């Protein structure tokens, strides 16, 4: 099951590689190696069976999700620190697979975002060759020329310079294509019935409703709906992150509420918050409410 999710991620990763080059590959390799090492060490420490835990693929999925969420020119230690935190504090301290309250990848992401804001906000602007990527990631030389802020960041910054939305040139940047890649990956998951439609659909509906409402209230100030949908990590969040079964709600109605509120929170955090993208925060916030949602959305029992 987890393996299918990893396969579905491939398309988005390939698109990302097409635009930004080898950085993402390096991050994934580093992330997976660290994840397996940390997980094995911890399982050995706890006296659990290592092979069966590693082979279920969940830990590799966590590593890949975190690796593709962080900037792919982030220094090598960022992913290592992030994934170690994610596994130890996000998963193993709760008792391993199935017991964690929070989405480990997002916990790692937020930890990195808060601790290393500079490293977490620079993105490459060009395709990086393998050599260039190695140089940047392992800090062999400093290449400022190839990095820049994300589109959402860019929009936000220019808005704060009191430019109106209309004055901003909205391109179809690389991020849109990456989002398209993850969208089709998500469709594959839906088609294979690995995930149910409830969370992704309500997630996107939440984004659409909130952003349209904001946009109607002030056309000049707020980002239009299509930008919310197509920029940032929206599709990755909708199909791959919010749908993590362990930390999501388990009832049908609960999932709809859960996904919808994540969507709403994302737009609010993106618009009013200090961080460019709000997926990680929104997901973690909603993770906290899952036990409550689950209690109040129990299905009707036959004959009662």
């Amino acid at each position: 099951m987890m393996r299918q999710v990893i396969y579905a991620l491939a398309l988005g990763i390939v698109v990302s590689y097409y635009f930004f080059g080898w950085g993402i590959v390096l991050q994934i390799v580093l992330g997976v190696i660290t994840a397996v090492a940390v997980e094995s060490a911890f399982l050995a420490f706890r006296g659990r069976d290592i092979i069966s835990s590693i082979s279920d693929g969940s830990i590799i999925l966590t590593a890949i999700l975190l690796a593709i969420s962080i900037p792919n020119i982030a220094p090598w230690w960022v992913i290592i620190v992030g994934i170690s935190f994610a596994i130890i504090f996000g998963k193993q301290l709760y008792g391993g697979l199935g017991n964690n309250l929070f989405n480990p990848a997002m916990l790692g992401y937020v930890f990195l975002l808060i601790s290393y804001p500079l490293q977490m906000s620079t993105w490459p602007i060009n395709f990086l060759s393998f050599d260039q990527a190695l140089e940047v990631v392992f800090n062999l030389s400093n290449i400022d020329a190839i990095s820049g802020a994300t589109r959402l960041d860019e929009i936000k910054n220019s808005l704060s310079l009191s430019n109106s939305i209309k004055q901003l040139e909205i391109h179809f940047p690389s991020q849109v294509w990456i989002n398209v890649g993850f969208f089709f990956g998500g469709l594959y998951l839906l088609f294979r019935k690995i995930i149910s439609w409830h969370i992704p659909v309500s997630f996107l509906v939440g984004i659409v409703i909130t952003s349209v409402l904001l946009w109607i209230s002030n056309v000049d100030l707020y980002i239009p709906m299509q930008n919310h949908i197509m920029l940032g990590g929206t599709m990755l969040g909708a199909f791959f992150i919010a749908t993590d079964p362990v930390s999501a709600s388990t009832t049908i109605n609960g999932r709809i509420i859960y996904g919808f509120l994540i969507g709403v929170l994302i737009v609010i955090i993106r618009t009013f918050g200090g961080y460019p993208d709000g997926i990680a925060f929104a997901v973690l916030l909603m993770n906290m409410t899952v036990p409550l949602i689950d209690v109040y959305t129990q299905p009707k029992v036959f004959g009662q």
Partner: protein
Amino acid sequence: MSNYSFKGGIVIKNPYLVNKVEIIQASLPKKIILPLQKFDGKAKPCVSVGDYVLVGQVVASTESGFDVSSHASISGVVLSIDTQDIVHKSGFKFQCITIKSDGEDKWIDNKGGNVDFLHYSKETLVGIIQKSGIVGMGGAGFPTHVKINKVLDCHTLIINGTECEPGVMCDDALMQFYPKEIILGIEILLYICGADRAIIAIEDDKQAAYQALLTVNRNDRININQIPTKYTSGAEKLLIKALLDIEILSGGFAINEGIICQNISTTKAVFDAVINHKPLVSRIVTVTGDGVYPNNFEVRLGASFEHLISMTSPNTKEHNYRMGGMMMGIDVVDINMPIGKTTSAIFVNNKVSEPIVQECIRCGQCSEVCPIGLLPQQLYWYIKSKNFEKALNYNLPDCIECACCDYVCPSHIPLVSYFSFAKTFSKQQTIEQNKVNTARERFKYREYRLERNKLERAQVMLDKKKALKEKMAKEQFQKQKITEAIQRVKQAKDKI
């Protein structure tokens, strides 16, 4: 086709497809074991060891109105009457009669047959059904005469021919080969319970059976209704929901809504009993699984599983055996145990290594397939942390143990085992709790009694004291009166 449905359930493709459904007459067993286990009452053996019995002869008669008779299914000599292990969920031993065959297959004289059932009164028919040893042959084994007799105003009789468990095909075969008998059996049941109509429910993958019944049915009170092939549609309450869109309340019974459900095999047995005066001595059993070529056998009750399996030439691998369906059946440890009235199938499966149980990842697939609308993973979580009370609050007692959740669980967690364990445990706990409560009540009453006695005694003392006081006061008063009188006399004397 019925327009209604119920939530959940799973579609399982029959894993052991056969292109032809037929009924093979099984050879006479050398020995039979007849368990006398029933519900409340116990049928009492009316033969003794060494007696010679004929096929169809009553070997255990009923005493309570809740019980049915048992009949010898082969002719021969009674070997023993003792308690033995049989395949049963409880794991208890039951009293059994063992008969050794003489190889003759001699029947009792069953006094003709082919009579018009309308000549009988309803009570007589109920009596015949009871004396013929007919119980629900679908699995639960509830005595048929009790079900049809209890009714006050039954409007619908549902005949369950869904056979929703994949692999089982004994009812399918029965419907294909005995459609006339089944229809007549239903007419008898209709006559007894006075229902307006009968609905035969057949899953839509059993077209041959459907056509067979359709061609012979001339009775416009009997509808033949196809329902979508989905597992757990054979469960009584869900079947009623799928056919009539009536939801039987949790803890309630179909009869409260004026509905009676009967298994299709039971109708055939009713026909045999009423029309042919033939008691229930045999049934059709499906032998299937990946260890054998699937077949239906008409076999005498009490024959061993081994007897049946030996006729199917199983492959040479090691096998697991399972009685009933592959979803809800019971594992058979010893295949020398007997086939009973409710044995619909026996699965002979090659032994495979058990899948490794992994942690629950809360994927929620179990709650999607649960036909009752429970949250199995939540229940599992509470039971695992021994929080039985919480599990009960999450409607654990409503679980019908259909094993849909087990089937879809990607982590291979044996959820139903957890649930049945918790049910038994909480039942046990309730019993213990009741004992504690009774003891506490008794203690409280004792305290109360002692207190009451004390108060009573105090009251008595008080009364006595009061009486004494009054008496003293009275005496005082009298004394005073006397003194006054004396004084008056004195004064009078003085005056004089």
